[in-house]
């Protein structure tokens, strides 16, 4: 093994010396025009991104795909390392030389001297030509010189890996990044790189992958290859799912790069006409109920409503409406999320299902009363546009009525005529659409276009149309009532429904859901062994055996059938006592049987249960025995006596005496 390693260590410099000899003639050419770049090798990801340009990219991507396949499939080193290295040297040298030559050509074109490259460059983003490719060229030369020794020092494993990579036709400039980050780099690398044609074919068609180099290269001549160098970067297809061991935790996903969520503007008027303007960050599925978000200056806590977070109020809302702003927050699972309000000078606010606020919308709509917020400077132009669309009778309000500073509000704006849009029309929001709109309102709206069964939405058509409007609900012709509401058979039945305006390409959908049929009881309040939920009292453990019992307050000493079953009611300022007693009450005696007035005091019987024989000699019934014997000694009578009750009381007296004797 040691001998093998020694041979490897000795052989590698020779191989790279050979490689460098092939590369060096081009290095001078490559470095001269590159005055804008540092000349150091790019980070791995950046390098790989830049490699999506040109044929070298195709080769590289092909190789990367193969590396990934190989790493994932067998994860073994080439069986014959010396042979593999020789093959690698032979294979790598022409590829490196070829790619260096290509970049030299590209660089000369990148200097914008040549006329003929324009159509090639037209679709390519600037960075793909000016930044990435030259940097890659320099990086290639530098990395070859500087990183190979360090790669060698990493030992046989790194050498073997390098050899295996090179054997797979990977250009050496890519190899340079791998030495010091072996496994991780190989795992990450293919995901960030444009997948090869072969991988794409396999993914899309489910067919066996054909190596891209083998498949494409024979069909391309040198000119085509050169042309490919300047091809615009391809749109990235969805990343291929990477196999991940079951025990490996998924890294938290970042959504920071995604499109920011919208911040809408909300306005509500009170009965005196004062308005409150706030901002409503949009809430989508999967977002936390509470998020702390930063706007650069302060932190605001967002509390979830249904479709938005709770309204945000700012002192400088006028500036924010005009200039826009962004909120950034982090979710509990560490995903980043952003909300953005694009600054504007005109906002149109319309009624929205699920809130009593008027919420910002795209534009005015014919025959719909909306609110317009505009900056004070453009008010004359705004009013001119509104006048041309037939708006009359709206009211204006300013800061004294709650409008943001520097803004004017127009309430009750109802356009009657559609207006034609101009190119890049600055008054687009004020120009109503020409066609009709389906509106759903009323009913009991639950969430996300779902209404409660029994309380369906009212379907109306807003706007005007040159042709007669035929409304279909679930494909059935709908009838219009006098109130202008459309209905068809089954439109209010639970399930999914669709509304369609025939010939006008307008449709919308809604669904109706039945209310749930079960609600879980839970201990909203807990007191000892009792849980309270609304009017329900749930008793646990021993308390579950207790029963509510009512008795006159004159007889608060309660006795059960078993010796030891004694309960004294709490004193109350009422004629009767009611409460939980932990046993079935048989007798109720005066509080102090020996010192009560026997003319008025009575023994109350509630059951005819005889004393329990099992525990009759138990040693725990002193209070029970004393109460019975005291009442007996006092000569208290049973209220409403009968033969049975007298006999029963006799049995209790007998049991109490026996227990007392037994205790002596």
């Amino acid at each position, binding site marked *: 093994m040691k001998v093998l390693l020694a041979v490897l260590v000795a052989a590698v410099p020779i191989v790279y010396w050979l490689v460098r000899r092939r590369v060096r003639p081009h290095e001078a050419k490559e470095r001269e025009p590159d005055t804008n770049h540092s000349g150091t090798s790019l980070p791995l990801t950046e390098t790989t991104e830049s490699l999506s340009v040109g044929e070298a990219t195709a080769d590289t991507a092909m190789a990367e795909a193969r590396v990934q396949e190989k790493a994932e499939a067998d994860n073994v080193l080439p069986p014959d390392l010396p042979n593999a290295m020789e093959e690698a040297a032979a294979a790598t040298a022409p590829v490196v030389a070829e790619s260096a030559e290509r970049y030299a050509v590209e660089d000369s074109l990148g200097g914008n001297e040549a006329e003929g490259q324009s159509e090639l460059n037209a679709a390519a983003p600037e960075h793909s030509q000016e930044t990435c490719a030259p940097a890659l060229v320099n990086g290639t030369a530098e990395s070859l010189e500087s990183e190979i020794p360090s790669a060698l020092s990493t030992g046989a494993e790194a050498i073997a890996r390098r050899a295996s990579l090179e054997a797979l036709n990977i250009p050496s400039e890519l190899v340079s990044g791998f030495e010091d980050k072996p496994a991780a780099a190989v795992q990450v690398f293919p995901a960030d790189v444009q997948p090869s044609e072969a991988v794409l074919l396999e993914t899309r068609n489910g067919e066996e992958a054909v190596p891209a180099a083998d498949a494409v290269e024979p069909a391309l001549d040198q000119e085509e290859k050169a042309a490919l160098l300047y091809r615009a970067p391809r749109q990235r297809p969805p990343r291929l799912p990477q196999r991940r061991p079951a025990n490996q935790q998924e890294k938290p996903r970042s959504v920071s790069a995604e499109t920011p969520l919208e911040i809408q503007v909300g306005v509500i008027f009170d009965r005196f006409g004062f308005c409150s303007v706030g901002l409503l960050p949009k809430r989508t599925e999967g977002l936390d109920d509470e998020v702390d978000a930063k706007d650069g200056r302060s932190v605001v806590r967002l509390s979830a409503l249904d479709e938005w977070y709770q309204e945000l109020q700012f002192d400088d809302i006028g500036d924010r409406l005009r200039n826009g702003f962004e909120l950034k927050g982090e979710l509990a699972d560490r995903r980043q999320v952003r909300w953005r309000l694009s600054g504007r000078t005109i906002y149109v606010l319309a009624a929205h299902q699920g809130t009593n606020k008027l919420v910002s919308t795209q534009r005015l709509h014919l025959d719909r009363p909306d609110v317009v917020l505009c900056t004070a400077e453009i008010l004359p132009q705004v009013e001119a546009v509104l006048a041309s669309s037939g708006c009359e009778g709206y009211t204006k309000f300013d800061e004294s009525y709650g409008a943001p500073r520097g803004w004017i509000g127009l309430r009750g704006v109802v356009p009657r005529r559609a207006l034609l849009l101009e190119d890049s029309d600055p008054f687009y929001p004020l120009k109503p659409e020409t066609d009709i709109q389906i509106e759903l309102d009323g009913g009991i709206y639950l969430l996300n276009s779902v209404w409660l069964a029994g309380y369906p939405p009212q379907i109306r058509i807003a706007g005007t149309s040159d042709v007669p409007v035929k409304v279909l609900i679930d494909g059935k012709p709908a009838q219009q009532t006098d109130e202008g509401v459309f209905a068809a058979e089954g439109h209010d039945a639970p399930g999914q429904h669709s509304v369609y305006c025939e010939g006008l390409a307008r449709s919308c959908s809604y669904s109706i859901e039945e209310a749930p049929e079960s609600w879980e009881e839970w201990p909203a309040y807990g007191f000892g062994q009792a849980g309270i939920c609304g*009017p329900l009292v749930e008793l646990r453990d021993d308390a579950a055996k207790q029963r509510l019992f009512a008795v006159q307050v004159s007889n608060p000493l309660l006795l059960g059938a078993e010796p030891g079953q004694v309960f004294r009611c709490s004193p109350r300022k009422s004629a009767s006592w009611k409460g939980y007693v932990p046993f079935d009450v048989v007798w109720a005696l005066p509080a102090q049987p020996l010192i009560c007035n026997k003319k008025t005091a009575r023994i109350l019987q509630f059951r005819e249960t005889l004393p329990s024989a099992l525990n009759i000699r138990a040693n725990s019934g002193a209070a029970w025995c004393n109460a019975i014997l005291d009442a007996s000694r006092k000569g208290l009578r049973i209220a409403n006596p009968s033969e049975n009750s007298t006999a029963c009381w006799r049995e209790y007296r007998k049991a109490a005496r026996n227990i007392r004797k037994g205790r002596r």
Partner: protein
Amino acid sequence: MTANELLLWLSARKQGSWAQFKGAVENLGLAEADSEGADEGPLPLHQRIRYNLERLGHVEFDTEECSDGWRTVPPALALCQHGCETAGILCGARTRKILGNIERELNGLQREQISHPDCPDIIRVRAPGSEVLVNLAQRAGIRSQADAPAALLSRLPQIDWTGAWKREPVPSSGKDWDIKHLFIHKKVMKWQAVSLREANAEGAEGLFRFTRFQTPQYFLRNGRETFTLPGAIGKYYVLHLGRRNVLKYGSKEKTLSVPAIFRPPLLTERALVLCSGLPPSVSEVHGRHRLTYQDIPEEVAGLAAEVLKQDFL
């Protein structure tokens, strides 16, 4: 929407956040009315509805398993015996189906539907005995709670039970505090404004209300100890310490009344409200507001007095 539809909405959604509830109430097309309670001040609509939903046992707010939010209680008939007759109040979630089932299973029983401001309609069924109503609830597919007011009150700790109080000093700094002290002397019972220094003074005793951003916090200073506790419990504890009684029970009218400033704690009040199903009426006696609870059986009044450590006037 009306309060009835709000309850349908709450029932369908089952639970949610306080903000969602507030948003839903804001959709109500009800006009703002003046506040009913002198003590509470002009409460906003969503607070008035929230308290009524809590009192009637429809929805629990900010409790176990729904902190900072709300959760709908399972539908149940809360039974209360009035002599030889039993009344069943429909509490908790409502759906069309539940209401239909009850209607269908009435079998000639008397059903009342009473409208009340800021509150869903009160649905009450009267029957000659509890068993009849228990069977009705079973047939309608809902729960029932026998002797609901007594069952609730029997399980509540008395107001001098300090187990749930937290030892916490009164705030000693801050500009935005609105501080008041519960002043009780002879027939005068009111909140009196005091300064932060007075509230922190060494010999200061009694109940203090610190309000900031419309959120009150109550502190009880008793000897060397200071607790934070619910305001209503603090008030009755102070009354108990001063041996002052405020409950008045009319055995003929079966009514229990208290000064509006001494509204009982939530669960005690729920028990009193469930006797009739009606929130308390507000009346003015000698320039002072009083809350009157109706159809209160004597033993329930006695139980409430015991929980509140009060004797009847």
